[in-house]
């Protein structure tokens, strides 16, 4: 959507309560995507309130054991893991430093874990279980013409003590969501958190809605967007750190939100973003990192493969949705044609059978339509989400490389300064010497500090990424499994209906004499 209004003062958007009768767009009954969030007993600490470097991670020790996965060897890249966890030494162990908890033997990663466990202080928050459910509903067009926008109602139901109430709702527009993501990304991405990406803008889609075309395709667009926004929010709050972020809380709770102007594609912030992206891409190509940890290399490869597979699958599913819609249209047309044929057939029994055939085909057409919708909403959208999520994951790995680069740069600079200092010893200008020596000493001290900080940053981001990746993989496997089960169930239903229809038709066909 393109907020083309560029007037300077961010308008206070008037959200008025939607009365039932005012719904402009009928809300479809499906809320299949919003699964009740239920991460097994993950505790949330109230202390981490932002991207502190030594933020406290909370893991229920019981969970660790339950989740520890077996290492799966990658035989060949194509056989890679669409639906399984892939190689993932599980999660950072938290217990006493001396014992290594992970059940696998003979993996070098374990060393990283044992040594890092010294740093971790686990805090357990008593009481709260992870229970929050967000729904996005009641899309309502506000305003007219090109300044119009869709307002969505965001309802939160939760028992988490973070929130002031158990159930509350606010009105938000698309740019608000983008603004939220932008803030979260700038705070968390560079230290290794996988921030779920927001749904994509669509200038074409939004323009149609603004212009007021209330046809099938703009209804579908609004529904697609509503569903995507809901999934986005659910993913965001499922992340234990992001959930506690004040921007997220404000987004969910406060009735008025300052307008996020910088999310406009053509704004200066937008242009800056694009330039930065390009610069990043170039930099990435030139960084050659000494990977001392094979885990990261493996994981990156794993995600590359996963990305390729998901994209292939996504393309196929999109193609299927398209073809099924075509099939539905053509089946309906055939049904009409068969009915006409039945009318003109002068043998009574055959005529009746042909009319019945026409009816069966009509019903099948409806089945195809419903199936196409399931294909799309259950399957295709999920795949699209994950393709975008993987970009965020890859981004996080890239940030780690950048952090490493920064550290290395500081180190090199320090080295140079030290050499310069050594050279200074042998010059023969005593008056300038002391001053220069002091200067260099200062610089060296500063740089030493930077190097230490760089190393700490690098270790921290590495640790964060490990956690994030394992969490991501867990979620991914769960997500996919749930969705595939739902999808297969919808297919089962279709087949059962088909059997019913054809079984009803068969005696009619046999009755022709």
């Amino acid at each position, binding site marked *: 959507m393109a907020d083309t209004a560029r007037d300077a003062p961010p308008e206070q958007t008037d959200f008025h309560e939607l009365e039932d009768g005012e719904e402009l767009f009928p809300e479809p009954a499906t809320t299949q995507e919003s699964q009740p969030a239920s991460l097994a007993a993950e505790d949330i600490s109230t202390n981490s309130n932002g991207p502190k470097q030594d933020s406290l991670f909370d893991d229920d020790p019981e969970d660790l054991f339950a989740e520890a996965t077996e290492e*799966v060897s990658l035989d060949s890249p*194509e*056989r*890679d*893991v*669409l*639906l*399984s*966890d892939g190689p993932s030494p599980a999660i950072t162990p938290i217990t006493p430093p001396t014992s290594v908890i992970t059940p696998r033997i003979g993996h070098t990663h374990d060393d990283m874990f044992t040594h890092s466990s010294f740093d971790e202080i686990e805090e357990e928050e008593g009481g709260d279980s992870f229970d929050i459910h967000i729904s996005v509903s009641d899309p309502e067009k506000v305003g007219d013409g090109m300044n119009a926008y869709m307002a969505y109602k965001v309802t939160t139901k939760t028992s988490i003590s973070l929130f002031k109430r158990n159930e509350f709702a606010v009105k938000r527009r698309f740019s608000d969501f983008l603004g939220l993501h932008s803030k979260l990304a700038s705070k968390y991405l560079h230290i290794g958190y996988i921030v779920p990406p927001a749904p994509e803008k669509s200038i074409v889609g939004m323009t149609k809605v603004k212009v007021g075309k209330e046809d099938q395709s703009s209804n579908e667009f609004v529904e697609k967007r509503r569903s995507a926004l809901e999934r986005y929010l659910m993913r965001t709050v499922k992340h234990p750190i992001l959930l506690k972020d004040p921007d997220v809380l404000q987004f969910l709770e406060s009735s008025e939100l300052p307008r996020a102007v910088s999310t406009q594609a053509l704004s200066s912030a937008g242009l800056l973003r694009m330039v930065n992206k390009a610069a990043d891409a170039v930099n990435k190509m030139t960084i050659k990192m000494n990977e001392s940890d094979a885990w990261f290399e493996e994981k990156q490869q794993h995600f590359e493969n996963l990305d390729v*597979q998901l994209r*292939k*699958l996504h393309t*196929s*599913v999109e*193609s*299927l949705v398209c*073809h*099924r819609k*075509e*099939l539905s*249209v*053509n*089946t309906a*047309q*055939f049904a*009409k*044609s*068969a009915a*006409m*044929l039945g*009318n*003109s*057939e*002068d*043998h009574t*029994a*055959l005529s009746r*059978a*042909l009319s019945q*055939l026409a009816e069966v085909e009509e019903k099948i057409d409806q089945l195809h339509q419903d199936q196409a919708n399931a294909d799309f909403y259950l399957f295709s959208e999920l795949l699209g989400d994950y393709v975008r999520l993987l970009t965020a994951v890859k981004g996080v790995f890239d940030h780690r490389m950048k952090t490493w680069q920064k550290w290395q740069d500081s180190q090199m600079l320090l080295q140079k300064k030290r050499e310069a200092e050594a050279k200074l010893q042998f010059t023969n200008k005593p008056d300038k010497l002391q001053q220069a020596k002091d200067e260099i000493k200062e610089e060296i001290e500063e740089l030493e500090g930077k190097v230490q900080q760089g190393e700490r940053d690098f270790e921290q981001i590495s640790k964060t990424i490990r956690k994030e990746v394992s969490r991501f993989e867990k979620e991914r496997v769960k997500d996919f*499994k749930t969705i*595939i*089960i739902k999808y*297969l*169930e919808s*297919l*089962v239903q279709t*087949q*059962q209906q*088909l*059997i019913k229809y*054809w*079984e009803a*038709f*068969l005696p009619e*066909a*046999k009755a*022709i*004499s």
Partner: protein
Amino acid sequence: MFFNAVSQDPRAVNVDLQTDAMLQVDISDALSERDKVKFTVHTKSTLPNFKQNEFSVVRQHEEFIWLHDSFVENEEYAGYIIPPAPPRPDFDASREKLQKLGEGEGSMTKEEFTKMKQELEAEYLAIFKKTVAMHEVFLCRVAAHPVLRKDLNFHVFLEYNQDLSVRGKNKKEKLEDFFKNVVKSADGVLVAGVKDVDDFFEHEKTFLLEYHNRVKDASAKSDRMIRSHKNAADDINRIFALLSYYPSNSNVGTMFGGFFKQKIEARIAADEDLKLADLLKYYLRESQAAKDLLYRRSRALVDYENANKALDKARAKNRDVLQAETSQQLCCHKFEKISESAKQELIDFKTRRVAAFRKNLVELAELELKHAKGNLQLLQGCLGILKGNT
């Protein structure tokens, strides 16, 4: 490419109860060469005309067309529905795809290439089977017809084991045909306007006209529907192929792989094609042949009426009366002969049509059920494993 055609069609069995002679024709083999198909026509007969009781010859598509056209042009057969000629074997699309695949061989993995090649070969085989079936049906219809089966050209076609030296029509002849058709349809319109005294034929005219148009529409729409179905089936196949990489639980992976191998959706589309689309296509051609019969009869009627008028005029002027009388008698005779056989032909047409539709619709429903049940089983098996595998 060798292929052994199987005569599935009961139309292949013909027993002539009147002359107590059997004539059974089928296509026992077929060979696809670069740009032509060679059909092995196999005949079993107790008719005395043939030198042997069982023999085979090799025929090409052009020779079938020659046979068909010879029936159409034979005035003696004006009162019969001439079985429609089989359509030309068309492997162009399939060959093109195979060629493209060959060109693109370098750009895909060996697995993908083998898979695609298998798919395309299966497609080629399916088209091949169809064209064999359609040529066979034509021969069987001729062999089943009480009059046409005795045709001399037909016997030559069946028995003469050399090339019939029937060349395809050259450009000039094709142009002539084109003009003939134009004239015929214009004439057809004129002739159709002539009201028939006979209720039966009047009804048949109206019926056939409408029926033919509707079958044409239904045939086109069913083709489109089935093509979409094939496209969707291809997608589903690709999806299951990708999903069958599910190593953390090899059972599920095998399940998905099973879907992929069985290609149930593709089979459904293929069966719909066979039972529904082909049926409609065939009756499109048959109803056209029936229309042609009615046209010939109407033409004869018009000629008869014109001859009557000419006779009256001749009698009035008292000139060339004998000539006019002969001409009138000929036209009368021709018209009555056509009318007599046409009535029976049209009744037979209806019987055949009803039987064919019944057979195909029943088989279609049975196949759809079979596939849906198969699909259901696979899906439920898969769900069981997925759900049980927490």
